[in-house]
């Protein structure tokens, strides 16, 4: 789905299916330097599973134009605008990594529009190493390579895959190349600057689920567990062998967790 917002084109995958009136909405939000492509095994699955899916590209990411948004709060405001534009009263939010921070911020700004939240490989705060930010600013390709390497678990580094013939390493690197230059350092700085997550998490009243990865080098599991412990109505799942990029490393497991969470 493509539409105009604030003078820029916005792309959101619907899983290649038309939205159907009356179906619940499911909004997937990607992490820093990523795009809707990280959700390619969720968007179609839930589009066929009775949901109106939106896997968005934030501005400057893949098929969405415009400047990259400079803070998590700005990303949350943008998602709320997308919901307004599409006349979505409320939705379940699914956020990966930085997308999880955006979920927290939306819950803070517009709690009535949030039905449930699934946090995937994320935490209430994601401190970013200064060296990574400066590398992303001066040698973006070097930063993309490091992030792809750290973002994938041991099976992905062995090119083990549930999609026949795919390389998660190759797809991770090339998908980042589709974003506009400068999107990655802007994302990383936005991530680093988000500090209110724990206070917001403590106030969230809707059902939540945290799916964390045992081999996560980008957002170590101990930070995700702090978020899980703080949320009031949370279900926690840990995928011991997955790295940070759960949606592509463990898609079948994640989809089952999501189905159970959504139907509970």
């Amino acid at each position: 789905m493509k539409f105009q917002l604030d003078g820029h084109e916005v792309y959101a995958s619907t899983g290649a299916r038309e939205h159907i009136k009356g179906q619940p909405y499911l909004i997937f939000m990607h992490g820093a330097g990523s795009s809707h492509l990280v959700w390619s095994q969720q968007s179609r699955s839930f589009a066929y599973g009775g949901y109106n899916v939106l896997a968005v590209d934030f501005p400057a990411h893949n098929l969405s134009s415009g400047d990259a948004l400079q803070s998590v709060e700005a990303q949350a405001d943008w998602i709320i605008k997308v919901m307004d534009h599409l006349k979505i009263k409320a939705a379940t939010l699914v956020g990966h990594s930085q997308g999880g921070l955006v979920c927290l911020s939306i819950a803070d700004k517009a709690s009535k529009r949030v039905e449930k939240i699934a946090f995937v490989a994320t935490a209430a705060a994601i401190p970013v190493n200064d060296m990574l930010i400066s590398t992303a600013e001066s040698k973006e390709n070097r930063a993309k390579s490091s992030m792809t390497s750290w973002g994938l678990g041991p099976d992905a580094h062995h090119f083990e895959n549930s999609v026949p013939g795919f390389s998660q390493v190759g797809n991770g690197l090339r998908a980042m190349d589709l974003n506009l230059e400068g999107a990655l350092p802007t994302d990383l700085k936005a991530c680093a600057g988000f500090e209110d997550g724990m206070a917001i998490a403590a106030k969230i009243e809707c059902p939540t689920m945290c799916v964390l990865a045992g081999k996560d080098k980008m957002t170590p599991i101990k930070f995700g567990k702090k978020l899980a412990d703080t949320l009031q109505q949370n279900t926690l799942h840990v995928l011991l062998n997955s790295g940070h990029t759960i949606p592509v490393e463990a898609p079948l497991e994640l989809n089952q967790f999501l189905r159970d969470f959504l139907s509970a």
Partner: protein
Amino acid sequence: MSDFYDLDTLALHAGHVPDKKGGSRAVPIHQTTSYMFEDSRHAAALYNMEEGGHLYTRISNPTVAVLEQRVAAMEGGVACTACASGMAALHLVTTMLASAGDHIVSTAQLYGANINLLQNTMPRFGVETTFVHGRDLEALEAAVQDNTKFIFCELIGNPGLDVLDIDRVVEIANKAGIPVVMDATFCTPYLFKPFDHGVSVITHSLTKWMGGHGVAIGGAVVDGGNFNWGQNDKFPTLTSPHYALDGINFWEEYGPAALTMRVRAEGMYNFGPSLSPTNAFHILQGIETLPMRMERHISNARAMVEFLKNHEMVSWVKHPELEDHPDHETVKRILPKGAGSMIGFGVKGGRVAGSAFIESVELASHLANVGDAKTLVIHPASTTHSHISAEDMKAGGLSEDMIRLSVGLESIEDLKADFNQALKVAARVVR
């Protein structure tokens, strides 16, 4: 330490993690046609391409997938689709990107079957190809039309051994907004990484150096994921709604892997050029030792070049590493690890002497293959390129007296002795 495993490691490990249930260290052969669905939802999910998995071996198979993932890893691509042969690979790419009324530009220095497919078969389906000498880059650029879908080439032409200045070809393609598709059979990822030079799609005959043992025919399409299919309106097969799957737009849904998903959803589904699981297993065994074999192929080839150059019965020798090779400077720049283990040479006395030589070798095998662990010889004019006109043969850099030699891994002293005795027989025939 680099961010990812090196080629030597990937050749052994990529694509396979021993499963917890069986624990088999070697890649198991999944000799099955089809796969159990967990339930109705799972069955529908596989048909709808909602999530990964195997549905039917014509489309994908777990053993074949290990091979695909290994080749994708070694080439640095986003995905790979293995198929029945290298020719099936070129057919898949051609039919996924081009439709009736479309056009391809190709270098003329190609394997005979590649020429045949593009020159004789595809025009019957409305896809025309303009062939241009790989060294004439102005002509190559001029040959690109509005309806051209890609530039096809081999880095090391078979069997003429011309080496393409691929960096300049990629520049021409980029300017035209079209991808470069390369048959990389002769170089393998050990010698050359096409995606690092801007090539967007690789086809392989896995039968040759990759498999390396002459026991299994196979091919592959490797997707570089580095081409923006949405930059213009030239690629509707990837950027407009598909005829099935609820009108999926492969570029929007899968981005860098759009071509692979179309190959899987249409190419494998409708044409069915699938690779057998057992052949995939055999090729995997070969790939495990590719880096070591290539080292030996290269060192033996260099020794044979020296031997042939100095033999009184040899009228000429062609190898890209020789200083008198017209592409020598390009070779030094882009093939630092070696320019392959193929050698062309002429036996004094022409066709009769060449025939006597081929019939007299005892270690080398006279057959229609290259890239085997064993040394192979053939006379292209009467075999692999017999369907190509004399004019096209000349354009491809071939001569009537040419012997094509694929240097194997035998003791170099034994090889030299074998060639020496066979050349002596040729000398006697000529006298």
